[in-house]
Every structure is written in C-alpha cells, then in structure tokens.
C-alpha cells in the first residue's frame, strides 16, 4: 500500500512513469488524485500516455466533469459581470476562474468551486449592494463573523446566489488584513489586464504571487499539491513567454512583502514538479522545506489524510499567521463561548 502522495506528483511530473503501474497502484493513484482535486489535471496530463481501458474511462469522466466546471465558472463570472455592469471600476477575476478565462494551462482540468473576484476596497459597499440586488444572499448571518470579516479579512463574508446556489467571494486584497505581509492591493488593480469582455485578470507576476500568498501565507496547506501545481504551470508559462519575468517577479514580490514565500514556492515547485526556476530567485534550502513537503504529501493510497501531527501543526500555524496572539485568544474565546452557534 502506498503511504504518501508521491505517486501522484511523479505521474504529473513524468506522465510516462505510469506505464509501470499495476491495477492496485492505479486504484491508489486515482484515489489520491481525486482527494487532492488533481484528477482533472492528471487526466489531461496523461492524454497521450497508454493506460488501461478502465483507467482511460475514469480519466475521461474527469475531463468531462471539469469541462462542465469550466463552463459553469465562466458563466458565473459573466453573471457577476452583468450584476456589476453599473460599477465603473475594475473587476478582477482570481484563482481558477481567472486561469480558465485567460486560457492558461493552469486552468485545464482544474476544479473550480467559488467565484473569486477582487475590487477596490472603497468600492465594496457599491459592489455588495449590486450583488444583493441581483440575487446573492449572505451565507453566514452571524453578527460576530460578519464583523470579523469586515474588520480583519481580505474579503466580504461569502455570498451565495439564491437560484444558482453558487458562492462568490469579493476580495479587496489578497491576504487577511491581520497577516504579516501587506500586499499592495492598489498596485494589483492598477496593473490588472483587460480580458475584452469587461472583466480583468491580474498581471502575470501578481497572479502568481496571489497563488503563492494563498498557499504559503494563508491557509493550512489543505489542497496544497493542487495549489503548487498551479504555481508550477504559471511559472513555466510566464517565464517562457517573457525572459524578464524572473526580474519582474522579484520586484513584485518585494512590493507585496512576499519575498520569503516566493522563494519557498520556487524551491518546492522545483523539488516536487521539476519546475525550471531561476536559482537566484529561490533563496537557500531551509529545514522547514522538508516539513512542507511532508505535509503536502500526507495522503495514503486509500485517499486518507495521514501524518495527523504535522497536519495539526500546519493548522495551528495557519491561525498564527492570520492573527496576532492576543487577537487569536479573543477569537477562540468568542468561538468557544458560542459553541458554534450564532450569538447576538
């Protein structure tokens, strides 16, 4: 039985490596890829490799499912565009929706959940009321959570559309306001690139740094292999398209205060996915890199989460990153008192 997700990383990195798998190993690879939301990416990656018939059918199912996800994501983005037609500022698509809207390799076969957009912070009230008028509603009608989002987060509390049942996250920057790094949101909006349909995506370096910030300066690395795969594909694409890209990336990383995170992302992408990176942009290997890799690969051949201790450590770290200690204590106290129920 396979004890970590290395088999998936290897299959993505060297598709030909799957030709040696037996039936049992295929089942394990498929379970791991599904659990890591990478089955669609894997399916496209293995399109030209000979695989057993049943595996081909499984991969074809994944391609079909992600084609539909892509279509739905673009439709949802267009719904938001129409709802915000009266708003004169830039509406910037983020994450998966941006990758498919901009036709990037990172969007091919990628699973996409919510619609993420970014607008100027001072425009939030206008944008919010336009979305409410167009059928979106609050998901969490809890006064503490609502206040918390508005005071400390990088996005509005999530909204869900009452008919289509799809969520939208409206961001005004790319990291929580309580996090260490303070990215320059205005610079991101200023440099955003028009798609031609009235919507925007971030400029290459910003798009990549958002993905990096999300993985290394925000959450607990859940779904990290997928996120790092995005980073790998974006790095390859942007650095091939523009030889000045590495310089641009370094400059933008400084602008946003994400220098260390950028270096770690480059090192781990190179290590796991063989991404060709500019060595001087990647910094020195650290012991912590080893812990990140242990955490990223913590999945066994049944698709189960493994390495509970290191998972928990990264979970604790994610809260630490988001909040100064005193604030974290207050937050946990409030959450505990409520026992998960709304107050107020």
């Amino acid at each position, binding site marked *: 039985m396979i004890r970590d997700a290395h088999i998936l990383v290897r299959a993505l990195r060297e598709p030909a490596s799957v030709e040696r798998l037996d*039936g049992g190993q295929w089942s394990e690879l498929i379970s791991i890829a599904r659990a890591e939301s990478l089955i669609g990416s894997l399916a496209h990656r293995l399109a030209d490799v000979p695989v057993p018939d049943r595996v081909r059918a499984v991969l074809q199912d994944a391609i079909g499912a992600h084609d539909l996800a892509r279509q739905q994501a673009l439709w949802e983005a267009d719904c938001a565009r129409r709802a915000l037609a009266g708003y004169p500022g830039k509406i910037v698509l983020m994450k998966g929706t941006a990758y498919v809207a901009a036709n990037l390799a990172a969007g091919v076969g990628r699973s996409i959940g919510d619609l993420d957009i970014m607008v100027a912070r001072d425009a939030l009230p206008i944008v919010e009321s336009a979305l409410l008028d167009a059928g979106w509603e609050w998901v969490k009608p809890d006064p503490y959570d609502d206040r918390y989002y508005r005071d400390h987060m990088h996005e509005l509390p999530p909204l869900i559309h009452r008919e289509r049942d799809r969520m939208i996250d409206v961001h005004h920057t790319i990291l929580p306001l309580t996090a260490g790094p303070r990215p320059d949101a205005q610079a991101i909006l200023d440099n955003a690139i028009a798609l031609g349909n009235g919507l925007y995506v971030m400029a290459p370096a910003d798009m990549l740094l958002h993905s990096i910030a999300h993985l290394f300066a925000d959450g607990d690395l859940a779904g990290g292999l997928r996120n790092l795969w995005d980073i790998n594909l974006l790095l390859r694409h942007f650095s091939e398209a523009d030889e000045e890209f590495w310089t641009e990336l370094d400059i933008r990383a400084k602008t946003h205060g994400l220098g260390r995170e950028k270096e770690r992302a480059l090192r781990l992408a190179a290590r796991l996915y063989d991404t060709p990176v500019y060595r001087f942009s990647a910094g020195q290997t650290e012991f912590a890199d080893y812990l990140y890799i242990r955490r990223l690969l913590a999945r*066994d051949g049944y698709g189960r989460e493994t390495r509970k201790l290191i998972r928990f450590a990264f979970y604790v770290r994610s809260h630490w990153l988001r909040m100064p200690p005193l604030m974290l204590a207050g937050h946990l106290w409030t959450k505990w008192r409520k026992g998960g129920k709304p107050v107020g």
Partner: protein
Amino acid sequence: MAEMHQIRLQIGPAAFRIASVWRQPLDQLAALYRDYPGPSDHMVDFTVRLEPDKPWRRYIRPSVHIGGDFWLPDVAPLPLGQGLLAAEMGMNLQMALGWRRHLLLHASSVEKDGRALIMTGLSGSGKSTLSAMLAQKGWRFMGDEFALLNLDTGDIAPFPRLISLKNQAIRAMQTVAPADRFGPEMTDTPKGDIRHLVPPKAAIYRMGEPARPALLLFPRFGHDPELRDMGQAEIFVRLTQASTNYVALGEAGFRALTRFVDQVPTRAMDYQSIEQAEELIESLWSRSP
C-alpha cells in the same frame, strides 16, 4: 496509519474497491457477492472507505463513517452492525456523484426478450420489490437502484447490485426466494428494517448485457389499480428529478433524456398488491411494441 482490509467488486460496468478498518462488513460483502466476477487486473473506478467516525469509535460502540473518492458532508455514521449497508450506500454514492458514462436514473429495471421495463418513483413506490418479484417470474433482474441509460445507443445497462429489501418487502420475498440468498437482517436503520437479497444467478452472469428500453412505469403503491397516461413534459421533469447526474452531464444528458422520453411508452401505475401490479404489467407488456 493502520492498514485497511479491502475487497474489489464488479457490478455491471462499474468496479469498486471497498476498504474498511473492520473485517466484518467485508466478510459479509464477500459472501453475498460470491457469484460476481471480480474486476479484471484489480482495476477499479471508485474507492469506498469505511472508517471510524472518531478514532475511539473503532472499538467502543463502533460507528462507521462512509467515505471514499466521492463523498457528501454530514452523512450520519452507522453502527458497525449496519456496516454492510454503509458499504452499499458508499457504492451508490460513488455512482451518483462520480459516474458519467451513462445517465443515471433512480429506477429499477428488468428485461425480457431483450427489452427492458424500467420502474421509477419515490421511495416506498415499490419499484425495488416489484423488480425482485418479477425476477422470480421469468424476467431478468437488471437492478433495483440505478438504471444506466447509455448516452449514445439509448440502451439500458444493468447494474444488478444486491437487492435492498425494506420492511414488509422482506417477508414478501422470503416466501419466493431461496433462504441462502439473503444477507443479515438489519433492524432500525435510517431506512427501517433492511435485508439484502442476492439477485438470481442469471442476472449476475448477464450483467454485461444491455437491453432496449420498451416501457417506463411510475408505480404508486396503495391506490386502486389504475393505469394513466402522462404528458411528456411531466415525464421529462420527473426523470430529471430521478436522475443523479442529469445536470452534471450537461448537453449529453439532455439529449439522451429527451430521446428516451420520445421513444419509450410510459404509464403511471397505481396498485395495492403485487398480483395486481403483475397483471397490469403483463397487460401492457403484451401490447407494447
């Protein structure tokens, strides 16, 4: 982490790996699926996982959480005594959420002379019991949970998993089916009393053989016997509700379903006893093209 026990099962076109931290549910599965051929080369489409709800629930009042490649949040755990039910629910969940090679209709189906009768309806309509009964009377059982509509040919593929008998249907089937084809009785499950019945051998040996859909019924138990015509729009809408993957299949699902509604004669059927239902079905079947 601890190794899990596992078993691989092939049902119709789909193959499953069931992994469990306990032996008991897998031993029960192995006994009930003994006539089924295993998947070739150990290749499977889906993995189902049966794990403790909380770590200590492996030993103390063991409770089974249903997980796997595809899963839903908030599925209530089941006691270990209902582990077999958990495995079956896990397999259904994989099909409902992950299968895209057919349009899935929540329906039972039986076949005669290469033509399929499909029965769909709400829980309690009797579609499962009717298919099990007809299977004892010269029809080939094709499935009591999902009818798989081929997106290209319009044929129905069999998915003859264990027949899930509930409450009174258990007694009714015990009078006609051999005793060694029944699984353990599980009482007080979320769906009442449940006992699984192994389909007749012919159904298992021929589980790769599709059939042309020839008649669609919407049975309803507990009303005076009657057959009623239905409008195409109603049939279509009710089938979209009976399908678990209609939306996920997009245009391909729409095309397959509109063709099905166009071509397959359909009736609503009320009945109060199995005998009445059999009579009504025979009368329709002898007249159907």
